[in-house]
């Protein structure tokens, strides 16, 4: 129950193609998060799965049954909308029961299911209120409740946390994770927030411009982003990218020059790298450290953000911008010049098309001026 397979899904609105040949298989009980910048087609893909939009091409299978021509109501899915889409003129109870009444369920069973969902979500105190009388968090629970009572094959959640304030978002996120664990049903979750994706997902689907860029577990994506886009999208603050060129390649070592002359010594290296090849070096801000060696390349600080537990510095090195997260509290100020180095830092190298050449935590690395 709850396997969803997308094969060569195409969708266009008029002349505009919104989805290009999307292929994806979602396993039963999996929590898959679609993530990507706004306009990437993730919501459309969700609506296509829901049956709210007809596909232009390809096929959707739920539990092995092709559902292209099955209406939204009959696909057995439930959806939680970004705006919650609670019926404002119905009480919470009626909101929860509406879908069940439509499928002609006996009254007693409706009452039971509504009660059960309400207890589970701790909204039983508000059952006779209308959505307008509830707080944002309560509405959100009702929206989830409305999906739960349906006991759907799979849950579709369209940015369900985006209307909550930051604190509530964190706690609700945790509850959602707990809920998933408890219901163990398939969930497809759409968000533009990579933190949500990372914390919730069994697997993340990163999308851009109607295409799937990469599918994988959160750590897969973090550690081995398939391309520059995924690398930049996953992880906060986002990865530093430095334009470079292969200066030397000998055996399993290489030297890449970046940012106007800073040399990066790599060992071992994989993949095809030839001398003179242009590439991009990606390094996460967390992986930059202050060098004890005063000859290390110096970064000129433009801004220092002291967060207490860590310090984020924004700097420039030969005109290229760079960001680093330093542990603890630092006494730097804007204008200071700080020597930086890579220490035990995984590096990600991308070719001119942005595709990954390799990324490995085991590479030896050192910066030199």
């Amino acid at each position, binding site marked *: 129950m709850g396997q969803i397979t997308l094969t060569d899904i195409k969708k266009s*609105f008029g002349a505009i193609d919104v989805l290009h040949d999307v292929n994806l298989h979602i396993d039963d009980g999996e929590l898959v998060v679609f993530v990507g910048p706004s306009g990437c087609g993730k919501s459309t893909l969700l609506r296509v799965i829901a049956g709210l939009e007809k596909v232009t091409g390809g096929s959707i299978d739920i539990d092995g049954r092709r559902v292209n021509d099955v209406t939204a109501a009959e696909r057995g899915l439930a959806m939680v909308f970004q705006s919650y889409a609670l019926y404002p003129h119905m009480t919470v109870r009626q909101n929860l029961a509406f879908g069940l009444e439509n499928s002609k369920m006996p009254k007693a069973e409706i009452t039971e299911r509504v009660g059960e969902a309400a207890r589970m979500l701790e909204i039983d*105190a*508000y*059952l*006779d209120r209308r959505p307008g009388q509830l707080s944002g968090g309560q509405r959100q629970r009702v929206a989830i409740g409305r999906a739960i009572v349906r006991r759907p094959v799979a849950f579709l959640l369209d940015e369900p946390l985006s209307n909550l304030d930051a604190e509530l978002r964190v706690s609700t996120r945790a509850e959602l994770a707990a809920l998933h664990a408890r219901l163990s049903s398939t969930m497809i979750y759409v968000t533009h927030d990579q933190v949500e994706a990372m914390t919730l997902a069994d697997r993340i689907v990163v999308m851009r411009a109607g295409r799937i860029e990469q599918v994988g577990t959160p750590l897969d994506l973090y550690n081995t982003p398939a391309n520059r886009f995924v690398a930049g999208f996953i992880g906060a603050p986002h990865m530093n990218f430095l334009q470079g060129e292969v200066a030397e390649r000998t055996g399993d070592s290489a030297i890449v020059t970046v940012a106007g002359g800073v040399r990066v010594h790599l060992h071992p290296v994989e993949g095809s790298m030839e001398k003179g090849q242009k590439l991009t070096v990606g390094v996460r801000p967390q992986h930059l450290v202050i060098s004890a060696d005063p000859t290390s390349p110096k970064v000129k600080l433009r801004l220092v953000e002291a967060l207490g537990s860590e310090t984020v510095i924004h700097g420039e090195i030969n005109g290229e911008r760079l960001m680093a997260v330093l542990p603890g509290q630092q006494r730097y100020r804007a204008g200071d010049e700080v020597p930086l180095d890579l220490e035990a830092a995984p590096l990600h190298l991308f070719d001119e098309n942005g595709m990954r050449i390799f990324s490995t935590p085991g590479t030896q690395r050192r910066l030199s001026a």
Partner: protein
Amino acid sequence: MTPPAAGSPAPSRSFASILLAPVKLVMGIIDVPLRALQKATGISGMAIFFLAPNMLIFGIFVLLPLAINFVYSMTGGTAFFLADRTFIGLDQYDRLFECSNYLDPMSCQEDAFWTAVGNTGWFVVLQVTLMILVALGTALILNRKLRARSFWRAVFFFPVLLSPVVVGLIWKWILQRQGLLNFALFEMGIEPHNWLTDRTWAFVAAVGVSIWAHMGFYALILLAGLQAIPKDLYEAAEMDGTKASRVFWRITLPLLAPNLLVVVVLALIKAVQVFDEVYVLTGGGPGTSTMFLTQYIYETGFASQLRNPGLAAAASILMGLVLVVLTLLQLGIGRKTEPKGGKK
């Protein structure tokens, strides 16, 4: 309204649900065949279904008459029914347009038509301008901090509820020579005036009375617009020490613009159609100074024993052309102001 405790249903609900039970039942029954229909036609088929009853009625009682009118305008004679009428081509239009000088209605064969056109033009310009000013003033005042605002709102809206015939009658009794106004003036020692038989004053009266009758509606639209302007804009202006007049010109008016446009267009359309209340008030007189297009069409086509439905139809087609221009204007504005519809 405090929400009732969990579990106990709201008391009003049970009453309403009893009331709605038969509706629910009927709607439920209707739903059965409609679900089947939906299955057969899909969701977009249902759109046609929802549109159909309106379009059907609309087609029979609005579009078809418009089309017939077109045919009428090409026929002659006094007969009423199309079958008894003779085809005469564009003669009726020729007759309407037979003029030696278009600026002087009296030089035209159908001088009444051109007089009516001229009167309608002036009326539209004057009435719309003045009415919007008055409505705007009323809206601004009603938007102030007033006690009993809903009472005042009702005061200004009240005439909208009256039938045009009643409006015309009331004002006729006030304005006629032996009317209330002259009596009041007389009591105050001011020379009474024969308002409705003076060409200028009768026109002014027609404009004034129609403003009286319709202003409240437009004032409410404008008031709704004023109330939608965020208060913090005014607070910001106050912090900047902006002068009240400047606040009006630079904040209120620009933010009210969409409402103003709607009001202008609706008022224009209504003004072109002016008929009933003025007809009762002045009968189109003195002379022909308050005779408007609609009255001309009505009297030529229907109300006189020597009617000429073909001529009236031709005049109405010409009027329709003018209205189409206004429609396009409305559409242009509508496109600009209406919220985005349909799918994302």
